[in-house]
């Protein structure tokens, strides 16, 4: 595919790795914010190619993983109602809530449908006027415009039986929360390229200045990630802390203006809880008052569901690189990929799950 194959060329990757090695003189801890970047790093073995001095800390940017347990439980409650068609992106179906997941609700008779676009859910609503159709609107700034557009269209077209279960979260407040942690080890960030496609880069200079950290907007293909790391290391080595855009083929400083206007119209900023991290002020979106009637939490009166996250889980510290996963008392005991207590064990690319698997490998080798 054009613009894809060119960015995974092994020879060019080797050259970038050589350049990174040439400029690295000391240890640096860099966080890639986005789960898609984590996936690409692990999938292609990029971390194994880097010099030993460069430590990649895997950030909280997997929307599936950071969606709070409480929100999953609300989704499960709504999806089990007989009058509801519950629509979701595919990978949310597997996320465990307190006792069940959406697959289980489906096996118990719930009408749960995987859609590829939230607008498909709106079509289902129009075709089934006697049903309540709910879309599970999770994700970062990347998925938010399509969800905003869907609610906007529902209102404009007068489709009253559609609603959105909103759990949107925002990247810049998460970066600030990580940096505010007193024992934070992160020295630079690879910002999530696709978030910046939507939002632009205006929010980041404030962060680079306040925390004196380089932030490099980075794409997702192997060469994109290596280029992001290369630019980050050059900044770190030269003592600079600036915003750079290493993904200019997709990201403009101003972002996607029509998408931003839509977000501005449909959503308003609110406090959000992050699974494994806790509440981060002003770190998410909810529907603005003009669209509140399309809020599934209110329509189905599930605002009263409160599920506490595990008290013993230390994934917040793991996410900030403060402890290694096996230093948590629950690791491998109460907390396993099959029964995860926190975000980093939910996702198979999360640090705890990776360590859990690694230990399993060692046992296999023994």
């Amino acid at each position, binding site marked *: 595919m054009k613009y894809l194959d060119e960015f995974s060329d*092994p020879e060019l990757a080797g050259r970038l790795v050589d350049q990174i090695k040439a400029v690295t003189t000391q240890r640096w801890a860099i966080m890639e914010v986005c789960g898609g970047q984590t996936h690409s790093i*692990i999938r292609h073995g990029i971390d194994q190619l880097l010099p030993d001095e460069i430590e990649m800390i895997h950030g909280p940017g997997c929307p599936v993983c950071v969606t709070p347990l409480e929100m999953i439980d609300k989704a499960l409650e709504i999806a089990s109602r007989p009058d509801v068609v519950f629509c979701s992106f595919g990978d949310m179906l597997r996320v465990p809530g307190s006792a069940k*997941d959406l697959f289980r609700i489906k*096996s118990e008779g719930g009408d749960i449908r995987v859609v590829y676009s939230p607008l498909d859910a709106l079509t289902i609503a129009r075709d089934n006027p006697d049903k309540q159709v709910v879309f599970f609107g999770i994700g970062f700034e990347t998925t938010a415009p399509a969800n905003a557009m869907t609610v906007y269209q529902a209102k404009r077209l007068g489709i009253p039986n559609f609603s959105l279960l909103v759990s949107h979260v925002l990247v810049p407040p998460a970066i600030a929360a990580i940096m505010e942690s007193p024992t934070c080890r992160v020295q630079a960030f690879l910002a999530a390229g696709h978030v910046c496609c939507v939002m632009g880069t205006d929010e980041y200079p404030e962060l680079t200045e306040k925390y004196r950290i380089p932030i490099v907007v980075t794409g997702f293909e192997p060469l994109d990630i290596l280029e992001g790391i290369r630019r980050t290391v050059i900044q770190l080595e030269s003592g600079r802390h600036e915003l750079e855009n290493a993904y200019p083929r997709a990201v403009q400083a101003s972002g996607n203006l029509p998408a931003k206007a839509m977000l501005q119209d449909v959503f308003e900023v609110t406090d959000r809880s992050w699974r494994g991290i806790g509440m981060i002020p002003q770190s998410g979106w909810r529907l603005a008052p003009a669209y509140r009637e399309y809020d599934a939490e209110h329509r189905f009166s599930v605002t009263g569901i409160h599920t506490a996250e595990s008290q013993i889980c230390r994934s917040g510290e793991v996410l900030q690189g403060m402890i290694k996963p096996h230093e948590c008392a629950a690791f491998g005991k109460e907390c396993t990929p099959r029964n995860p207590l926190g975000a980093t064990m939910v996702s198979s690319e999360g640090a705890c799950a990776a360590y859990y698997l690694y230990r399993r*490998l060692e046992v296999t080798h023994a």
Partner: protein
Amino acid sequence: MPDVSGERAAPIDVESWVCPIPLRDSPNIVMGHGGGGAMSGELIEHLFLPAFGPAADAGMGDAAVFEVNGARLAFSTDSFVVKPLVFPGGTIGDLAVNGTVNDLAMAGARPLVMSTAFILEEGTALDEIAHVAQAVGTAALAAGVKLVTGDTKVVDSGHGDGVFINTAGIGIVDERVDIRPQRAALGDVVIVSGDIGVHGVAVMSCREGLEFATTVASDTAPLHGLVAAMIDTGADVHVLRDPTRGGVAATLNEIAKTARIGVALDERAFPIPAEVRDACGLLGLDPLQVANEGKLLAFVAPEDADRVLAAMRDHPLGIRAAVIGRCVADHPGMVVARTALGGTRVVDLPIGEQLPRIC
């Protein structure tokens, strides 16, 4: 606790990168139990085999091989529930014949006879059933297998997706061969017979709610002719499997586990058509976990690899055959791939169903 401080050097498992791990201890059947991955295996191991008790005598192959009056026979059955019934490159009818033919062929058997059982949903158009039935006939003729018995049932509207088909087949095993997963051995060369991921992408491209434009058509085909050409080289073929549900990843993991050997793959060696790579990139799927219907994986001794590969490439269904890996002593029971960039990664079983990712 083992030292885990050096995790950089170890392969980390994200092959089945679907963020959340499913709850596997569901009291009900969930769709993932039918995905051909880890959940399917657990269902067989923890439910069916204990329930069957001493009556069960099942190996890990796709077909059972047994002797009757000195002749070695292979026996296999398979059910087909594909949606939609007609997809680019084939229909559920082609799959029903070729699937069972291939299960027999993977034991080194030439298919002889087959049963077909149709479960039809009330309200399904007769035209549609005729279309599927004709495909069954055409595929059986092409494969040289006789349809010798069958059954028809009808279920209430809403209780089936138009047509479900079960086929069972009996074949006669070539007397020169002993093909089974337990025979995978250190040093064995792993060969794939052609482009992977094609069938899965073709079916997904026309699935409701996921439609996308692609030129990819299903690779459904009977493979016993290709297998015969491989055996005719005189090579000792150790293992044959067709990587259907769960794709190449699931099949290689099953073999590695059964034979207790490691499989080391070279990701660059995989024949993956650009359309398949693009569709998988778009949907967030791994081509190694996507279903095939007309491909096989062969494990052969290194000294036999060249002639087997040459014979495969001379056959119309093996033109794009390629060596993709080897059996190694490291990481027994596991499949590890060297990435194009030179890193390594574990290639794991898909857990349940393949699902498009959010991002």
